[in-house]
Structures are given as C-alpha cells and as structure tokens.
C-alpha cells in the first residue's frame, strides 16, 4: 500500500475519535475480561483476538494525537507511529476476527463500547485499502447493483411471480400510500423466499397494506460493515428516498440483524437528519400485531426448539421480548440456551465476516461456541430471525454433521396462521 493511503487511513481513524472513544481508551485497565466475552478468542485461545487489542492502532493514534503526555512521548521518540505494517497486521483482527457482535462491550467493567470502537477503526482500514476483498466486492455490488450479492430487481420479480403462482398472493411493487415499506435482504430473495410468502400471508391476515420499492428493496448495508460511512449513507438514502416518495408510515427491516441497526439507529446519523417515518424490525411489527390481536395462529410445534438471538437485535437493537412472545404462540417446547438474549453468543458470521471468504476457517472455529451451546440443549429445531445468522448456522451445523433444521421465526408463524377467507385487506 502506498504511504498516501496509509496516511489517509490514519487521518480517518483520527477523525473517528470522539469523547466516548477517548473515555474508553482512558479507562481501559487491561483486565482482559473482553477476551472471555469474544467467541474468536475463546475458540482459538489466541490472545491477539482480545477485543481491545483489535483497536490498538487507534489507541496509539489517540494517545499520540489527543493527549499531552502522548505527544510528549512521541516527540521524545518514546512511542512509534502507526505504519503500513500495523495496518497489514491488524487487518485480519479488525475484519476477520470480529463480527461486531458487541458482547465485549457488554462485559467491560469500565464500560468501554469496544465493538463500536472496532466499527470505527474499520473506517480507517477501509480508506487505507486494508479491507478484505470479499467485503470490498460486496460493497461494490451494493452500490452498483443495489445488492451485496448482486441480486437484481429481475430476480425479485421472478420470486414475486413464483409467489403469485404458488399462493395467489401478491407482493406489490411501488404502491404509494401503503402502510408498510418492506425491505428484504438478498439472502432472503435468493435462499429463503419463504420469508416473502410469510409476509404476504401475515399482512393479508392483519389487513395491512404493504409494498416493496423497486428502487430500494435491499435492507443490508455493506457500507456499515466494511466501515465506509459515505457508502453507508448512500445506501440508507436510497431507502429514505423510496419511503418518502411512496409516503409510507413505517419501513420494515427484515430478518437480519445489522440491517436493522444500520437503518434504525445509524441511518439518521449517517444522512444527517431524522426520518419522517418509523423503522421497525419485522419482529417488532409482528409483536405489535400480536398485541393488537391481528396475528392469529393455531396449533403448536411439537419439536424441542430454541432461539438464536441475532446479536444486533439483542445487544444493539433492543428486540428481546418480541421473539419470545411470538414463539410462545406456536410452541410449548421452547428452551433457552445457557447464554441467551443480551448475553447470546454470535453465530460467527456477523459484521461482514460471512461476506469475507478469507475468514471462512476462523468463522467455523468461532461457530464452535454456538455448537457447544446447542450440544448442551439437544434441540430438534433452531429458530432465528436473521437470514445471515441462518445461513451461517446452516453451514456450521452441516460442517459438524448436526441434523438441526434452522427456521426463520416469521416463516414459522406464517405456517401457523389461521386462514380466514374473506377477512383482511386485499394487498
């Protein structure tokens, strides 16, 4: 890498440092508790994966630039400037070895939000040209095609045709004035079209109108994952433009973890203004329907099942009770994992790790944490609410010869809907 791009990276990291970040570095006592919270450390035993170590280059930049003592040390030659070798060495820790799951932030005794620091240091690494190829490609496709997986509108239209053909239900495109604008992840369009059908059926039962924007149907945000705020903002803006143009009241983020926090909490800060519509995760919408009596189900699952909490939902998004209440409608044999809700362990594929082919081996090691949780429970079925978790879990289970089907919660609820012909709004 040229020294110019390294300089850019350092400048970008410097720009990311605000009072919270400075307070975090000022407070770290090197107690090492964050290591024990991290599946990458716990499963590899490699201390380099200690979360706070992943932002060591940022700490040095902070100390040298923003503290008097650090400046004196740097002037006296007592500390070394961050250089190209550091970017080289830390790239793997910053991207492959962190799924931005936020578990470390929750256990830090002094209160450091370490995963947010890693989210921020990525801004510097991306601009310095030190981001993994897989993630760079996904981000490029997101900008150019509108989907990190390169899924085009025609692919979505094909799925909508299948839906009409199989069920007679429609997924209306670009319908102005609908109650809900539904976003999808590419993974759902390509791998889990059951989600689209579930939405169509649930909305029909609830008597709500909904639409999908042909211009902005993708929910995920590669810009957030790779750490390029300009791109992240552009991707958010597409959704905001679509929502405002169609005049919807609520935008629904699909079964995906980071897509939700990206649009719900990072979004307004990325584009620099609040929205004039609401953003809800699909589970929040379903929970609202349940409370309003708009979600009617019949029958219960008999399989012993557990719920894998998507990290971004529980630790960054606050969606904890909804899935449990909803599961209660359709199963009596639900069991919790030992560490669940806000203390849940990541599947290993979050934070862009699953888009980063280079990280495959490390990701499957990290999955062993989830495996041990599942081994302990001995469940027949695993339910989750994130397409990315789902694919990562399916891969991990397959690799470990574990015969546990993984189901999306929305889809499971739709399977239990009481069909009431004639009732509910036409979509």
């Amino acid at each position, binding site marked *: 890498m040229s020294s110019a791009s390294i300089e850019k990276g350092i400048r970008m990291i410097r720009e990311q440092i605000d*009072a919270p970040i400075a307070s975090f570095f000022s*407070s770290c006592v090197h107690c090492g508790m964050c290591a*024990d919270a991290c599946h990458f450390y716990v499963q590899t035993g490699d201390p*380099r994966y200690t979360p*706070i170590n992943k932002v060591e280059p940022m700490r040095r930049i902070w100390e040298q630039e923003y503290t008097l003592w650090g400046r004196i040390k740097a002037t006296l030659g007592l500390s070394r400037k961050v250089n190209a070798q550091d970017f080289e060495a830390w790239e793997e820790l910053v991207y492959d070895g962190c799924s931005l799951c936020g578990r470390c932030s929750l256990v830090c005794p002094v*209160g450091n*939000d370490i995963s947010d620091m890693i989210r921020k240091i990525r801004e510097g690494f991306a601009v310095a040209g030190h981001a993994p190829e897989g993630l760079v490609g996904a981000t490029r496709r997101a900008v150019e095609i509108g989907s990190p997986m390169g899924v085009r509108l025609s692919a979505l239209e094909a799925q909508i045709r299948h839906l009409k053909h199989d069920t007679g239900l429609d997924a209306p495109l670009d319908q102005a004035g609908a109650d809900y604008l539904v976003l999808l992840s590419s993974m759902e369009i390509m791998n889990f079209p059951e989600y689209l059908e579930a939405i169509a059926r649930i909305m029909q039962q609830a008597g709500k109108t909904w639409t999908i924007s042909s211009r902005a149907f993708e929910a995920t945000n590669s810009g957030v994952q790779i750490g390029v705020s300009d791109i992240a903002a552009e991707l958010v803006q597409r959704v905001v433009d679509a929502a405002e143009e169609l005049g919807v009241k609520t935008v629904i983020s699909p079964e995906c973890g980071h897509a939700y926090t990206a649009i719900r909490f990072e979004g307004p800060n990325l584009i620099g203004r*609040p929205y004039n519509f609401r953003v809800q995760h699909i589970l929040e919408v379903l929970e609202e329907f349940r409370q309003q009596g708009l979600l009617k189900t019949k029958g219960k699952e008999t399989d012993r099942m557990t719920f894998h909490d998507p990290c971004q939902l529980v630790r960054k998004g*606050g969606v904890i009770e909804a899935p449990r209440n909803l599961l209660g409608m359709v199963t009596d044999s639900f069991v919790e994992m*030992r560490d669940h809700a806000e203390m849940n362990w990541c599947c290993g594929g979050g934070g862009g790790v699953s888009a980063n082919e280079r990280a495959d081996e490390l990701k499957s090691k990290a999955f062993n944490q989830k495996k041990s949780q599942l081994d302990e429970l001995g469940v027949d079925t695993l339910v989750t609410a994130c397409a990315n978790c789902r694919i990562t879990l399916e891969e991990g289970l397959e690799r470990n010869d574990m015969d546990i089907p993984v189901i999306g919660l929305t889809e499971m609820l739709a399977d239990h809907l009481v069909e009431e012909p004639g009732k509910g709004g036409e979509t």
Partner: protein
Amino acid sequence: MTADAFLSFARGTGFDWALTIFVFGMLLRLFEVLSLGRKPDLSEGRGSGVQGGLKTIVTRTLPRAAVFAREPVRIINGYVFHIGFLAVLFLYEPHIELFDAKMGLSWPGLPTGIINALGVLTIFSLLLALALRLTSPVLKFLSTGSDYLAWLVTLLPVLTGYLAYNHMLLPYTAMLAVHILSVELLMVVAPFTKLTHMFSFMLARWYQGYRAGHRGVES
C-alpha cells in the same frame, strides 16, 4: 537529611507538589476527553439516554453471571483489591484526620485492627493480580510497562502504610515519610497511566449507557 526533615518535606512541599500534579493532571486528562465532544444522536430514541447513562454508571459495577462464571478468581480479586484499597484510604482514622485538615470533611472510620487486616488483604490481592497478569496468556499479552508501573505505585502506599503502622523495617518516622512519599508517587504517576480510570470509568460507562438507554437495550 534527618528522618524528621524527610517527613516534614514529604508532608509539606512534597505533598503540595504531588497534589497539584494529580489535580491538574487529572483535570487535563478529563478535559482532553470531554473537549473532543460527540455528535447528537439523530435516531428516534426508544428510551432515555440520561437514564441509561446514570444506570450503567452504577450497574456496571457488578459482573454478569455468564462473565463471572468464566473468571471468578480474577473478578473476586478485583473486588477485594478495590474495596480493600478504598477502605484503607478512606476509613483509616489518621487518613480521615488528614482529609479533615485539608478539606474540612470528616466521616467515621473503621477500627485500626480491621484496617490493618484489610491492608494485608489488599497487599495479597495485588500480589495475586500480578501473578495473574504474569501467567494468563491474555493478560501477559496485553500488559505493557505502564501496567506494571501502575501496579507498583499502587502497591507501595499500601505496603509502606502497613510497615509504618506495624513499626517494621524502618523506624516509624522514616517509614511514615516513605509511606507519604509513595502516596505522592502514586498521585504524580496516576494521571499519566491507566490509573486515570479512577475518574474516567464514569465517563465511559455514561457514554455506553447513554447510547444503550437511547436505543432501549441492556448495558
């Protein structure tokens, strides 16, 4: 220099200098943090950031069960050290008299026998902390010279205080002077090491808690 002159320096000029460096150093460190500011959060809140921040300042003092189960020794030892150190510092009668003299504030203390025992416990917890730092792969990996320096300047006041109180190693007056100097060393070093966490932890917890409160998530 006689022991008396030594003590009088430690109590006088030495203390004043150390206190000045401590106070201004810490204020500078806090200013360095706060002056960076932060952008307002434009996302629609689900809860109160202020409540979340205040709550986290308190609740983060206790470990989560899942964390405790993984590192019980390290965590219990952390409590023993912090409680022991703070008790010896703030609840030993002669220390309270000093605070009274300097700031006009006083409060009830603990019997000296208990303080003596707490001092021993604190020293042992620091020794165990060092042993853990030298043996745990993560702690060994993370530790820098500054961590060991912070450990040493924290140990010395407790150790010399114990030796002075029990009239060990040196004549009382000399050991008392050494004790006071070691406290001054701690005060001078603190603003330039991780010991800044004694104040900044509240900011760190506040910032994370504020954000969590705004989002309506646990913290």
